[in-house]
């Protein structure tokens, strides 16, 4: 019996040595350590043996079982490890291969800049309003102190819907300023609003001129609003948008619907004020017109200029986008070439 155990042990170990897969290992375990294995049979038969022999064989059999079990555990650990290693080896890829492409959508640069401009003013408490592109002469000109045959009409090359161009004619708005009047007709002070939208010009296109543009109009009306507040608001905007270090110029200019009138320019991005072709050698790039709302304009909006004051401003979105992205041809915006659009 003892000899039988010895042989069994040796045979099992020899078989175990040849096992190379987890599946084989399981058959080995069933064969040598399972319920029907020889070893189990020997252990079960112990009871029928004489006491002396039972002790010897029992001890020996248990020892063989322990030894086989530990060999099994060790083999199992070893096999699991080698399986994992070979699995991992098979999983590897060339990580430099390109990923699966996902098509990218982007906003038009005008939209991006427009949203950025509006966001800055919204943070300053301005509310957003929109108005019609096709306007009455009254809102676009007359109510803004630009009656028919006024010299300032030269500042606005107009696309007309009605050929008579007279009072009551319809036109494509040349600026977003008609919204000043439309808003005053609807709201009472305090007013703090921005009004973005498309504007149109009777203008031959070239690198710096377009027949369609986007503008953002601003309007703030209440008691005690001053030119200094306008300056503060616009400087804050410029700092937010162009950076704290950009120098800003705040100079006198003329628009019939504001008094005093203002033009704001920022230091040229290309030459930093030294003068270059981009800034026509002035060192400055104009970005917006502004001023204190003219008393007559307030009156037309049914707001008493003796009690209230206000400021207004208007800026061209493309011009600001051109400065931000160093775009040198305005026609790129609405020709919508994907090679241009995908850069933003």
């Amino acid at each position, binding site marked *: 019996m003892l000899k039988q155990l010895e042989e069994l042990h040796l045979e099992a170990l020899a078989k175990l040595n040849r096992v190379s897969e987890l599946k084989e290992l399981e058959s080995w375990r069933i064969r040598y350590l399972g319920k029907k294995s020889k070893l189990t049979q020997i252990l079960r038969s112990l009871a029928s043996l004489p006491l002396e022999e039972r002790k010897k064989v029992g001890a020996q059999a248990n020892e063989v079982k322990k030894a086989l079990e530990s060999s099994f555990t060790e083999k199992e650990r070893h096999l699991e490890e080698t399986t994992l290693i070979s699995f991992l080896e098979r999983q590897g890829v060339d990580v430099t291969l390109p990923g699966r492409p996902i*098509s990218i959508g982007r906003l038009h640069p005008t939209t991006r800049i427009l949203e950025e401009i509006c966001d800055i003013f919204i943070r300053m408490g301005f509310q957003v309003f929109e108005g019609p592109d096709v306007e009455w002469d009254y809102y676009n000109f007359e109510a803004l102190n630009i009656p028919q045959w006024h010299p300032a009409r030269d500042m606005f090359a107009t*696309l007309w819907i009605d050929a008579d161009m007279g009072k009551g004619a319809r036109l494509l708005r040349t600026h977003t300023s008609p919204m000043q009047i439309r808003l005053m007709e609807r709201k009472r002070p305090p007013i703090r609003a921005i009004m973005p939208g498309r504007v149109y010009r009777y203008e031959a296109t070239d690198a710096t001129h377009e027949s369609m543009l986007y503008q953002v109009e601003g309007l703030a009306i209440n008691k005690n609003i001053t030119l200094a507040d306008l300056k503060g608001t616009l400087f804050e905007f410029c700092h937010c948008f162009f950076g704290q270090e950009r120098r800003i110029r705040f100079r006198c200019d003329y628009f019939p619907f504001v008094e005093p009138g203002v033009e704001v320019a920022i230091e040229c991005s290309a030459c930093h004020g030294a003068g270059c072709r981009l800034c026509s050698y002035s060192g400055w790039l104009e970005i917006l017109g502004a001023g204190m709302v003219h008393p007559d304009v307030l009156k037309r909006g049914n707001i008493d200029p003796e009690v209230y004051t206000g400021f207004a401003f208007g800026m061209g979105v493309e011009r600001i986008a051109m400065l931000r992205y160093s775009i040198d041809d305005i026609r790129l915006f609405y020709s919508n070439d994907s090679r241009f659009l995908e850069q933003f």
Partner: protein
Amino acid sequence: MKVSLKWLKDYVDIKLAPKGLAEKLTMAGMEIKDIQEVGGTWNNVVIGEVIALNPHPNASRLKLPTVNISTQQITVVCGAPNIAVGQKVPFAGVGAKLIDGHTGKLMTLKPARIRGILSEGMVCSEKELGISDNHESIMVLPSEAPIGMPLSDYLGDIIFDLDITPNRPDCLCTIGIAREIAALTGKILHQPEIHYEEMEEPIDSFISVDIIDPGLCPRYCASLIAGIKVASSPNWLQQRLSSYGMRPINNVVDITNYVMLEHGQPLHAFDYHKLKGKQIVVRRSRNDETMATLDGTEHVLSPDTLVIADKERAIAIAGIMGGLDTEVTDETDTILLESANFNQAIIRQGCYSLNLQSEASIRFDKGLSSDLPLLPLKRATQLLQELAGGKAARGVVDAYPGKSEPKGILLSTGEVKRLSGLKLNISRITEVLQSLGFECRYTDIASQISVITPYWRSDVKSSADLVEEVVRIIGYDKVPITRLSSPLPPQEPRLSATRQQSNLKQRLRNILTSCGFQEILTYSLTSLERLQRLSPKLELNVTPLKVANPMSKEQEYLRTTLRAGVLTTLADNQKHEEAGIRLFEIGKIFLPQPLPVIASEAKQSPQDKKRLPQEKEMLCAVLSGPRAELSWHGNEELLNFFDAKGVAERLLKQSGLKATFEASDDEGLLPGKNANIIIGGDKIGVVGDLHPKVAQAFELSTSVCLIEMDVEKLLGKITGLKKYQPIPRFPSITRDIALLVSKQVTYQQVEDIIQSFPLVAKVTLFDLYAATQIPQGKKSFAVRIVYRSPDHTLTTMEVDKVQQQMLNRLYNELGAALRA
């Protein structure tokens, strides 16, 4: 407007360097666009005198002048035909920088041997000096020019190019700008003194003036000078005109122009003897009256135009251009000199209807002061006597029916502070205004003055105008920088409709870009032809609004759809893009509105005869080309109808909406492959493949799918408030079934029946099969149904029961059989 620094210095003492001066003027509202330095490159060019002239031994057309430049006498080679002994000429020595007469480029003068004779220097033409384009002859200087003086000291100047805003016609002249400089730099303005001799005979015996409508011509002044001699102007006068970009003509015309450039008042000289009836009448033109203007054009006039007439006919278009009939010629000996004031609007109207502009009209149409004409008239009369001889009739005509008394404007320190934020005392305000020529009077209130506007500042009418004057002279850079301190406007309790709409637009844009769509913005204006191309029959459903004065045929009509612009952009991009293209635009279309019915014709206002178009926000997206970019992962399938529909579904789903899709008959889309997007019974858009004829008309290379939605209608369907639904607590049971139906049955019909049963939580079509194993005329839908109850765990029996009822109904209503 160009202005010469040299000329400015006649009236005001200028110490500032040109750049500093330019900055001051720019800040104060007169933007300097350009500073041009005349003679800046004239190194080594001096004034010389031709003291001898010998022929060139080897060339008959060349000469050998000897030029005395004080330090030495040099003989050079010269080819100009006009050179003569005794002339004062600009002489360039070796090393001078000159413009090459042939190439127009700047070059340095080197010694040269010309047909065997060494020439170390040259006598210059105006072109070589950059003064004009004249290269045929050498420039001849006035005889009093000092020999040996550097030419830049004698002729050099700085020319400023100013952008004068339309409110400042007073600055369209040298004195006007000198006045600004004086105020900005604290200097005094010196105006030229005027006095001249007059003859015995009063002007009334020569001419009478009749103004028909003082509203159109508030003032008409005139003088008469007899016995003049028309000739060329002296050099200095010609140079001044040239430096302002005006061509010298003769002494009479040049003087009128000179005085205009000096004082800003346009003048006109008539040949007195060509006038009929010793009479000037200022009147509107008669219908179809004709006249030839100085530029040689024959005009047919209308009452839109104001004319100057004699007893018989129009002799000038008032404020715009003189007539050919009464032009000053070499034979003219008596001049009637006009200095008048015209209504700004009638001048503009005249320019517009005649399509004619002049140096005079660009001043008159901005509204010159009616107090201006007299002084410039006398100045011109004086210059005429000095430079053209003759004698002035006694006195001047001064018909001034439109005279008005200046009114005082009250201005207080409080008002200055209220508008500008600048705290200034009344004496500082007074000082600034006086420096600009305003008259300030004290009032009963210590902090307030009454201000009389000087006649040349017709633009200043209110206290706000005065505040600008004060602030711009003190400097906009002195305005403090403050934050808005006024209360914020109330926020609207519910977002306004327009606000909601712009929020929705922003959300739609974000969804579409996240779906891989590029946003585009196309012109609101388009061509009729492009709109027609959207219909295979080239028919328009809506007549678009037309622009009366379009820039081009391409931009003549307001778009009534976004499709044309989006498809054009797609076609443009297909030319260079191989990958799939996904584009969208969200923007306005313009739909003409029917006119309201008005009971009585008499009560109509202009607005009643026209209406603004409806401006409707739309969304249009297109997809075309391969679904995925070319890559080693494969998938070269083309984007198709169901990609477009998927995007439409996503747009709606993310807005909390579910639509049904019904076959539509949109004529621009492929029949049978386009569907209306329906929500709650309303059509809010359409999705489909582009009609091949339309694709062809837009020169599109592959099939194109299109989505179009009405943003306003979509907004109307979004209820806004979302309500939380509890997460299901009980497990679901999933069943897959395959249904065999005839080809006419739509999936929607099948799903509607399945969805109508209780316990059905989700239905997903996961396969559509219609091939060999399926009987002819049939198709198979494989559908996964998820059953769930909100209050208990379902049993198999429960589900079996529901599904059996479902299958019965599917069979009875659609003939659908369960596929084995």
